[in-house]
Each structure stands twice: as C-alpha cells, then as structure tokens.
C-alpha cells in the first residue's frame, strides 16, 4: 500500500493554477483586439466611428466591472461618464488642455463621486437600487442643466482647446490621432481591468455576486468590496467620458442623459456580461449597427435595435461573446 497523499498538489499550487487559467487570454479577446487594431488600416473612412465605439466599449467595461462581477445594476451610470467628460472639458476650457491631465482629472472626480454614491447604494438592491441609481443619474443631468455658468447648460460646453497628445500629436480631422490615442488608453485600461477581475479582489466580487451571505464567512467585508467596486467602476467610466470629450472637443448635456445610461446596459447585454471583452464587442456591434441601420433607414432603427435586444435576452445565449464561445467549443469538440 503506497500512500496516495503526495500526489495531491498543495492548495496554493491549485489556486495558482486556477488563477492562471482564469487570466489566460481567450481567443475571442485576442480576435477582438486584433480586429480593432487592424480596423485602423481596413476602414480609414470610419476612424471616428470606431474611436467612439471603443470609448463606449470602455464605458461598458466599467459597467461590467460593477454589474458583471459584483451584480450591482446601475440605471444611472452615465452620471460618472458625464462627470468625467465635463471634468476633462472644463479643464481644457480653462487652459489645462493636456489630454492625459484630462484623463486623470476625469478619473479622480468621477471616482470621488462614485465613492460618495457607493456609501448610499451599498445597502440597496432590487428595484430600489434601480430607482436610486436612476435618480442619481437624473439628478446629475438636472444639475448640469441648471449650472450653466459652469457647464454651458443646454448649449454645451464651448471653447475647449485640447492640446496635442504628449505635446507632439495634434488631433486631426480624419481622426487618426484620436483613434490611436483612444486605442492605446483603452487597451491599457482593459489590461488593468483584466488584472483586477482576476485578482483576489475580483474573485471576492464574484463571490458576492454568486452568494452574498457566504462571503463574510471568508473574512471579506461585503460593504467595503462593493464600495471599492463602485468607485473603480465610476473612475473608469470617468476616463471613458474624458476620452469622448477630448476626441470630440465638445461636451453636451447628452453625456449625462438617461438614454446613455440605458444604451450602455444594452451594449453590455448584447456583448455578454461578466467577461470584459463582451462589453467591448457589444459596444462595437451596437455603435456600428446603429450607424448602419440609421444610414439605411434612419427613421426606424429603434425597432431593429429593440428587436435585437429582445432576441439576445430571450436566447439566453450570454450575448455575442457567449454565443461565440459556445460556437468555438462546438467546433473544438467536433474534431
């Protein structure tokens, strides 16, 4: 009788192995980023569209961090996006037009506001959570509308002067610099987000989502974790907003609108929740489809959008990425 015990690996080894498997790049992630990078050369006439899709993608990723990993649904996420946009916009208007400074400013202000909000919403759930986040979003919109000396109100923020990136590359009319700048920033934030969700912190969040009662038993403070998630999510949304402000060189109330809060939810579900790349894919498909449908038949694109949304939800396939994964698995098994 030989003892079997030595054959069982130590728990730390198992954990490391699991971490590695979780954090491994999946083929759809690689495909997305390759296609996104290649689109710079493939679709030279569409740089601005793709830039805006990538920015929306980062915004969706910020929501995914919150919703997909910790299960908090927010119906007012545009608040953080808009605050980031206005922060970068006002900085640029007041002569602080360095793009990177704008990003940092957007992240800090939106993150701070997110931290404040997280104090309020950490104990809510269900319909009350939906309504309170919705209310916060609407409040921010109203505030920006009222405070027109700062925001320009309904006319939008004018007089933004965004300096060249790193003092070298000025934003051009074809959107080349805007594309590369946004692509690099968003890719970096995507890597950071990946690291975050695959860290013990990210695992704890997933734990909260899956079973909120058992997490405290692991010695983790649910409240603190959720507040952290909310703050980080808000800061990332703020970066996305700042990017939009800088590449558009204009900020309007619309960045805070209810429509934007809703469409970010739609993009997330369309792409697939809880895997980060789904948000990027969802935003890309949504923005491109909206552009194409509107060009074909501007009047009724709402109908097709709604239909697509219903089909995605009803299919329960986990969005586009979920479907692609299953397709990939099937092909893999078919060999």
């Amino acid at each position, binding site marked *: 009788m030989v003892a079997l015990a030595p054959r069982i690996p130590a728990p730390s080894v198992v954990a490391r192995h699991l971490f590695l498997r979780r954090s491994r790049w999946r083929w759809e992630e690689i495909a997305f980023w390759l296609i996104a990078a290649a689109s710079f050369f493939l679709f030279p*006439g569409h740089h*601005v569209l793709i830039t805006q899709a990538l920015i929306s993608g980062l915004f969706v990723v910020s929501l995914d961090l919150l919703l997909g990993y910790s299960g908090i649904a927010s119906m007012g996420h545009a608040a953080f996006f808009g605050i980031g946009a206005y922060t970068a916009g006002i900085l640029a208007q007041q002569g602080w037009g360095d793009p990177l400074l704008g990003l940092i400013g957007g992240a800090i202000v939106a993150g701070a506001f997110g931290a404040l909000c997280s104090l309020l919403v950490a104990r809510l759930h269900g319909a009350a959570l939906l309504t309170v986040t919705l209310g916060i979003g609407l409040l921010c919109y109203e505030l920006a509308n009222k405070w027109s000396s700062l925001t320009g109100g*309904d006319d939008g923020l004018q007089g933004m002067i965004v300096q060249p990136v790193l003092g070298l590359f000025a934003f051009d009319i074809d959107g080349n610099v805007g594309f590369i700048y946004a692509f690099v920033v968003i890719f970096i934030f995507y890597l950071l987000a990946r690291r975050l969700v695959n860290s013990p912190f990210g695992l704890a969040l997933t734990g909260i989502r899956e079973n909120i009662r058992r997490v405290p038993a692991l010695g983790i403070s649910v409240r603190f974790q959720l507040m952290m998630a909310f703050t980080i999510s808000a800061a990332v949304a703020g970066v996305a907003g700042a990017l939009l402000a800088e590449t*558009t060189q*204009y900020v309007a109330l619309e960045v805070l609108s209810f429509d934007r809060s809703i469409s970010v939810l739609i993009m997330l579900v369309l792409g697939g929740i809880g895997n980060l790349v789904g948000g990027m894919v969802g935003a890309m498909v949504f923005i491109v489809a909206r552009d194409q449908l509107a060009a074909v038949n501007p009047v009724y694109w*709402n109908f097709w959008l709604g239909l*697509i949304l219903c089909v995605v939800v009803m*299919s329960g396939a986990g969005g586009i990425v979920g479907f692609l994964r299953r397709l990939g698995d099937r092909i893999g098994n078919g060999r």
Partner: protein
Amino acid sequence: MKTSGLGGAWLALVALAALMAPTPASAEEPPLKIGLLGGYSGSAALFGGQLDAAIKVFMEQRGDVVAGRKVEIIRRDTTGPAPDVVRRLVQELISRDKVDLITGFDFTPNALAAAGLSTQAKMPIIIVNAATTEILTNAPYMVRFGFTTGQAVAPFARWAVKNGYTRVFAIYTDYGPGTEAGNTFKRVFAEAGGTLLGEVKPPLASPDYSAYVQRAKDANPQAIFIFAPAQDHPTAFLKAYKDSGMKDAGVKVLATGDLSDENQFDALGDPALGMITTYHYSESHDSPINREFVKAFYKVARPGERPNFVAAVTYDVFNAIYKIVEQQNGKIDPDKTIALLKQYKAEGPRGPIAIDENRDIVQNIYIREVKKVDGKLQNVEFDMIPMVNDRGVETK
C-alpha cells in the same frame, strides 16, 4: 435548435461590419454631394420629414441637375440633440463622403459641435434651424438661413408694448433657447416701457403646466409671454391655460411660432385659437411662391404632415445652393461660396430674405393670430416687421 436559429442573427450582425467598406464612386461626371443632417428618428423625426418633403418639392420644380452636376443628397440621422454623433457624422461626411456642402441642423448643440470641423476643413455649412445667436460667431464657414431666437422675440416685445400689452407675465422653458428667448423678451420689453409682472421657468420635462399657469394667474397680467419647445409643451400649456379661466377672462397668449407649429394644430385643437405668435414663416403666408410651395408639399409629404418653417427654410437653402453652384460653374469653392452667400438675396415661400455680413439671415418677422381658415387652424399674418436681422434689429 434554438441557438442555431439565432446564429443567423448573430452572423448577420457581425456581417454588418463588412458593410462598412467604402462605396465606389461613379466614374462619370462627379455628382454634387450635399450632406443633409436632421432628426429622422424618435421625437425629432418630424424635422427629417420636413427636410425630405421640401427637397422633393424643390427638385420637382428645378430638377436634380445643376450646372451639369447631378445633386446627390447624403442624409444622416442626428437622432436628436446628440453632439458627439453629429460631430462624427460631419467628420465622416467631410473626410469619407467628400461632400461639397452640408446643410440641415436641427438643435443648437448639434450645430455648435460641427462649428470647429467646419472651420478646420473649410466646409460650408448652411444651418436650417439651430437658432441660438452665438453659433456663427467663431465659425466663418457657417451661414444661417433659419432664424435666431432674438430675431423673432425682440421685435415681438416691442410690438407687444406698442399694441397695448404692457403688463405681461413670462413663462419660458429652462434650457438654452428658452433662456435666450426669455432674457431677450425681458430686456426689450422693459426698454420699450412694458412691465414684467413676474416669470417662471418650467424644466424641459414638464408634462403638467397647471402650477406655472396658476402663478401667472396670480399676477393678473394682460397677457402671458411663453416660449416652449414644440411637442408636448404647447398641449399641456394650453390645457392648463384654458382650465385656469384666463382664456375666458381675455388674457392673451403671446408666443413664438414654436407654440403654434402647423403640425401641432391637430393636437392643440381649438384652445389654440386667438394665440398671437411671432415667426418667420406660416403655411398661410399669402404669396404666389408660397401657394405653389404648399400645394406641392402636400403632394409629396407623409400623410398628416403640414409644411412648417423647416420646410420653407429648406426650400430657400436649396434655392441658394443651386444659385451659387451656377455662379461658380458647377463648383463649390469654400471662400467664394461664403462670399457669394453674404450678398445673397431671394424671394422664398416665407417672403424676401437676405444674408448679411455676419452670415446670418435677415428676413420679415410676422405677427400672426391662430384662426380657423376653411375648417383648418392657421397662423394668419396680420402684422409684419420688415427685414429684421439676427439681433432683432430692423434693417429697413
């Protein structure tokens, strides 16, 4: 089974990306490409309908070839007040579609968002509607054919005092255009010797006006001046106004044409009767050009849609485009175009128009009363302030 059916839908979606390949240009005579930006979906869709119908009317009368070039309209949906979308659309029209000129523009923020690009690319832009006065200030390649809020309101405030409405209560929506209208009215009205009894600023989302109207009633005015965007505001206001008893007591409603848009008359109904409004166009404007325009409009428009200021202005815009293209023998040179437009004068469905040195519109402002004509509500013109410029000053 379920998944495979949906697979088609997914693939179709993904395949949309393939649609993005650039469209091949025709090899022959290059068409004259005109970018057209307007709201075509949601609550802004009325604007797009007016644009399209007016262009159809114009092309039926004048053909779709000018100076040997076929006119190609590239229309894009602003989806409402969405400056980031509009900026992208303008950028694409310029750098991908290579348009010669852009027109349309519904909301002020949309026009402001395009101003920088217009300057950067020297792209002539003709504004159909965005009415905030400041839009043109830093945009040397933008020209406005529509109107400015001050243009409609300032002469109206003077008119009100002159015609005995000296004690007025003001209601104006709390957003950019509303504030501009309200401030202009207050200033000019006071200068002319009127007394403003009070004011109230309803927010943009105001489904119920009864409280605001009650405040007006407490002030016991001769008339109410109101500025509010079209759609649901006028309905809600008129209901509350009627219910308050002020209509029966003879308190007049003075407003901009936004409140008495021809397309809203069906929804407003008889409570709109007697309202006095100021604007640059009414369907009932009595001139041969307009009679023909209105007749042609009904033939091509979607059922139920009536011509309003957007259609009239769009007609004028295309008239101008054809003229300047002819003057330049089929070309559109940015600087020459702007120079030519600065001297532009014409007669359109709304009457005589001219563009001044500031690239802004000079036109008649009409004072109209809502009346029933042949069973249909109409803005019947009964007074006119000739050739008012964008600051609301008469130039004649």
